């Protein structure tokens, strides 16, 4: 069998990519770039479109006019480039044009209630979800073209590479810094949720791969956890889509319900932050619920963020647990030597993920206390300190600040001409959010915050790679989800997800009300 198709599709893909690259670099795309707020990605658009466009045209010419020998490795692996570029082009269109257009439309509706967030953020309508949807539409409406079939099978490689690099975003030092309460509570609920989903999955006889991926999604942090755990338990495309759908639908319901319950029970910021950070799965939805509960400050948001970060940092532990669990289950561990099976079957890329996590914890890519590449550092050069004019504006506004902690933090800021500590930074962010001082003063406070919050360049680059690897992998994953497969999957994952989600929300509420006081 010769895998390479003598088809002009790859050439056409190359021409489209080159057209995007050229129109971006010569300014013809400026109107679109401004309308869709793409200024930050212009460099990426030029580089990627031109590079992959050129590759597509060269390989496309070889596919069309070259000689392809049956059984050769060159024919087999070379033929995958057509499908890979097909997926990449769709990913580019989704990430640069479709997702930003959805954001523009969503922003035209305004922010949703007190959540302080736009509809697309709250519904998780980002390139990840839109990419999977695009893949599903392609396969179910148009079918995957023959010339692309071989390359579509590269999508899982993209996901695995992305998952390994995901380890660079987290660090052990950040985990050590977190409060004992959040670690105990999150540990209990994350491990508990994973355990219950696995147990219910076995009782309801859903496949191990489905139970495994759903447990990670429901237990840890939604979409990234689902993607990370999927190859570990060899989850099928439809199972991943089911899990992501369950998490997003569940999260949206919780985001609107939690603030209402919080107000009814007269919860404080710490209690509500702890509850929402434990019970809601998606990061944007956690922030949305926290801001809806306390629109005039960020105390709730800050606590919720700590709980959210703690949950994400449990990801390596869960990935390891699922890897061992799955190997044992699939190999009928009672009859075989477990350690032998684990050595033989343990997914190597999980070790890669752990390796990257360990490297990131040493500070090789960013200061060791970073989280997703962001860190606090107030060793500022003189030029970055607040100017006399700015200090005078803040001094004039000082009387408006009534709360003692905010007033003290502001005094320290004025005295030192910079934010003096990570705690002060949080308090001053709350002051900005509360809208107590004038717009001008708020702008100065925001700039003071920005100058002590740094983003590590290396981690930023890793994020870019991860984003593209996931976009590539998830579009390809969507192309493997047929309507028939969705029907076959049935409604069990939704039932299990709903039961476990409700259990977690109710139990965490009970724990918070019993044990969490307003002063941690």
């Amino acid at each position, binding site marked *: 069998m010769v895998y390479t198709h003598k088809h002009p599709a790859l050439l056409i893909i190359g021409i489209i990519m080159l057209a995007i690259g050229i129109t971006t670099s010569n300014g013809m795309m400026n109107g679109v770039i401004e309308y869709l707020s793409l200024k930050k990605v212009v460099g990426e658009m030029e580089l990627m479109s031109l590079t992959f466009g050129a590759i597509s045209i060269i390989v496309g010419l070889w596919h069309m006019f070259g000689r392809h020998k049956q059984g050769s490795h060159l024919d087999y692996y070379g033929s995958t480039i057509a499908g890979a570029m097909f997926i990449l082009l769709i990913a580019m269109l989704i990430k640069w044009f479709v997702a930003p257009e959805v954001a523009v439309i969503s922003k035209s509706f305004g922010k949703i209630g007190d959540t302080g967030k736009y509809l697309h953020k709250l519904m998780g309508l980002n390139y990840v979800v839109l990419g999977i949807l695009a893949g599903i539409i392609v396969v179910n409406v148009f079918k995957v073209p023959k010339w692309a079939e071989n390359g579509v099978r590269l999508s899982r490689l993209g996901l695995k590479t992305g998952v390994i690099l995901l380890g660079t975003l987290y660090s052990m030092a950040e985990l050590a810094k977190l409060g004992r309460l959040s670690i105990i509570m999150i540990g209990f609920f994350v491990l508990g949720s994973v355990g219950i989903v696995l147990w219910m999955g076995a009782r309801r006889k859903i496949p191990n791969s489905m139970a495994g991926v759903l447990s990670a999604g429901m237990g840890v942090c939604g979409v990234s956890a689902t993607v990370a755990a999927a190859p570990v338990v060899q989850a*099928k495309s439809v199972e991943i889509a089911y899990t992501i759908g369950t998490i997003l639908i569940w999260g949206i319901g919780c985001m609107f319900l939690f603030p209402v319950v919080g107000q009814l029970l007269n919860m404080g910021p710490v209690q509500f932050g702890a509850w929402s950070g434990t019970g809601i799965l998606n990061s944007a939805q956690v922030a949305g619920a926290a801001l809806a509960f306390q629109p005039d400050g960020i105390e709730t948001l800050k606590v919720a963020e700590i709980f959210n970060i703690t949950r994400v940092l449990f990801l390596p532990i869960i990935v390891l647990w699922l890897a061992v669990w799955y190997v044992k289950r699939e190999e009928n561990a009672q009859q075989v030597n477990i350690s032998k099976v684990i050595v033989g079957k343990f997914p*190597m890329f999980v070790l890669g993920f752990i390796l990257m996590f360990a490297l990131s914890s040493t500070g090789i890519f960013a200061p060791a206390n970073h989280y997703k590449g962001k860190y606090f550092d107030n060793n500022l050069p003189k030029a970055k300190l607040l100017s006399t004019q700015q200090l005078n504006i803040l001094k004039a506004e000082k009387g408006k600040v009534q709360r003692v902690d905010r007033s003290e933090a502001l005094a320290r800021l004025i005295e030192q001409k910079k934010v003096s500590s990570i705690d002060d930074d949080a308090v001053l962010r709350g002051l900005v959010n509360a809208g107590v001082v004038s717009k001008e003063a708020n702008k100065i406070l925001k700039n003071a915050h920005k100058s002590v919050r740094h983003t590590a360049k290396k981690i930023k680059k890793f994020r870019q790679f991860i984003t593209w690897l996931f976009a590539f992998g998830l579009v390809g994953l969507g192309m493997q989800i047929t309507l028939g497969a969705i029907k076959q999957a049935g409604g069990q994952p939704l039932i299990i997800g709903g039961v476990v989600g409700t259990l977690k929300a109710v139990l965490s509420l009970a724990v918070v009300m019993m044990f969490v006081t307003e002063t941690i």
Partner: protein
Amino acid sequence: MTEEKPKFLKGTSLSIFSNDRMEDFIALGCALLIALGVYLFV
């Protein structure tokens, strides 16, 4: 809940590689290359 049957001589309907371990190693290799590139040039 089964995937479509493989229609390729090598690999499965999900992967072009002959087994998962090989795919893992290739992914690990790609990730390490990217990490090295980022470490050296960014």
